[in-house]
């Protein structure tokens, strides 16, 4: 069987990605005109912050997926691993955009977003003063820069390592060395991932929107959210590329495993989400319940329950049976639903803190999201087209071909 190794970007794909990016830029301009100056631009910057962080963490989750499977000596993902690598390449442009947004926030002293940016507020508040070693503009910028730079750098390294296998067939000894090298770099990434996504970065970027409030579950909950959406993104791209007649070795068995991952991590997300909520609800301490006040019974109550239905009940009931995980249509539909659901989750995380009194959702938010989706499509398609679609000399490649779920 001859393999179609090189992805050619279909014309419609390119048009769509360009159009979506155009919509994004247009909404950015319109949003700036409409909301840029009112109330120190809180509405405008909240939307940018929510979308950039959500999509950055989502594409970064694709990176986590292939490094974690590398570390666990997984073989099943080899037949579509290049797709996850291509998605993770979007960390570069989205990371840059996110950094620019952070610079604007810090330089513009947007205390409607991060109230700890205002020195007078911090000095008059013992709680914030106590946290000021962590929550200060310098640490925020340095740590954010380090985070994104290392994600980018390690991503480039991992993708380069993956392409090394394309040169020639490996002997067993070479294969061992190759796997070892991969393991070392993947573990470096996982350590950094733990120090960032699984702990500090959600504290810095999202939890500090309400600087007085804290939860030890928060980072894992954010990670669960983004990993599910990352898996949904992987599923969508795999299905699309497969539909175009590539990825000959990817079949129902692999789809089934992606579906299982989505199912499992949806439950994982629910577990953390509920733990965070239930303990705070039960203890009923006012400084903790303040976070859920407007989300549970205020303006965001609708979103709160919708979040639970989309991100827990829907995947739980739909993905439970074997048949639905082996159905291309259902997996595609559910991936779209989950991507949207976790986007909503991030929406209430950000806007529930910055604009607690009403839900200001309108076309502007969806326009910005469309821009990021277009950017991901453009970058992923570009990287997919540049390199061979399958790492066919990888020692575990055969394991993926004969994979049986």
């Amino acid at each position, binding site marked *: 069987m001859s393999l179609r190794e090189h992805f050619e970007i279909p014309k419609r794909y390119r048009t769509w990605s360009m159009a979506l990016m155009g919509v994004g830029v247009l909404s950015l301009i319109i949003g700036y005109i409409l909301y840029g100056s009112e109330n120190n631009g809180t509405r405008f910057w909240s939307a940018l912050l929510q979308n950039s962080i959500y999509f950055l963490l989502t594409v970064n989750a694709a990176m986590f997926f292939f490094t974690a499977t590398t570390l666990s000596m997984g073989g099943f993902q080899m037949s579509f691993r290049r797709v996850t690598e291509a998605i993770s390449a979007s960390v570069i442009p989205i990371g840059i955009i996110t950094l620019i947004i952070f610079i604007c926030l810090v330089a513009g002293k947007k205390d409607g977003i991060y109230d700890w940016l205002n020195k007078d507020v911090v000095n008059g508040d013992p709680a914030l003063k106590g946290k000021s070693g962590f929550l200060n503009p310098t640490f925020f910028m340095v740590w954010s820069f380090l985070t994104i730079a290392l994600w980018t750098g390690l991503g480039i390294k991992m993708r380069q390592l993956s392409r090394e296998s394309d040169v020639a067939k490996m002997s067993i000894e070479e294969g061992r060395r190759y796997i070892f090298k991969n393991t070392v770099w993947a573990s470096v990434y996982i350590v950094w991932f733990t120090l960032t996504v699984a702990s500090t970065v959600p504290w810095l970027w999202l939890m500090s929107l309400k600087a007085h409030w804290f939860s030890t579950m928060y980072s894992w909950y954010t990670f669960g959210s983004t990993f599910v959406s990352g898996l949904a993104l992987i599923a969508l791209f795999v299905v699309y590329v497969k539909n175009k007649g590539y990825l000959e070795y990817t079949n129902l068995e692999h789809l089934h495993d992606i579906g299982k991952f989505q199912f499992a991590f949806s439950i994982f997300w629910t577990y953390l989400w509920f733990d965070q909520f239930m303990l705070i609800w039960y203890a009923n301490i006012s400084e903790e319940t303040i976070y859920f006040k407007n989300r549970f019974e205020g303006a965001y109550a609708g979103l709160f329950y919708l979040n639970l239905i989309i991100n827990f009940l829907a995947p739980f009931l739909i993905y439970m*049976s074997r048949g639905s995980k082996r159905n291309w249509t259902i997996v595609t539909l559910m991936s779209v639903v989950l991507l949207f659901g976790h986007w909503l989750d991030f929406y209430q995380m950000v806007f529930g803190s910055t604009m607690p009194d009403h839900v200001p959702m309108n076309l502007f938010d969806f326009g910005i999201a469309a821009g990021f989706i277009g950017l991901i499509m453009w970058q992923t398609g570009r990287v997919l087209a540049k390199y061979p679609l399958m790492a066919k000399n990888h020692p575990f490649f055969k394991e993926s071909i004969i994979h*049986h779920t």
Partner: protein
Amino acid sequence: MAIKKFAVGCFDDEAVLFSAVKKVRTAGYKIHDVYTPMHIHGLDTAMGLRDTSLHIAGFFYGLSGTIIALGGITWIFTTDWPLNIGGKPHFSLPAWIPITFELTVLLSSIGMVLTFCYLCQMAPFVKKHHFHPRSTDDLFVMVIECTPKTNETEVLSYLQGLGAVETNIQVAETGWWLGSYAKDRKPFEKKETVIA
């Protein structure tokens, strides 16, 4: 239960077993079962077995756990014996979710284990016929059910032609019985091996 006649073929290689299973099925023989020391991916598909319904049973066991927990706690805390716990409302759903979750998991797991034992007819003291003692060690044992029309020597030579390392005819009880092997059967006694 019924006592039936079986043609037994033992294989020592997975790859040989797979093609043998396919050929035996296309030849029209009825495979009683294939006994293997470990799970073999894809063997159920090759044998043409349908998917198990165990997970559907599991869903309903779980559902009953959810209903029992939610219904029970609701009835106790709102009607039967309302208690004031820290000023919380009598009907406080979030606090009941952990117990609901536990009972769902408990009933579905116990129910599924018991159903599994029933489907496989496994229980303490219940014995079933072993076609070959090494099927728990390193042999893959394929058992073909014989009908009155079956030509035994033909089946055995056919099995050997497919790569079976050991073949024989056994007359065995298909169901289970209570008791021990020592009294009723001697599964470890030396059996005649038919050499065609």
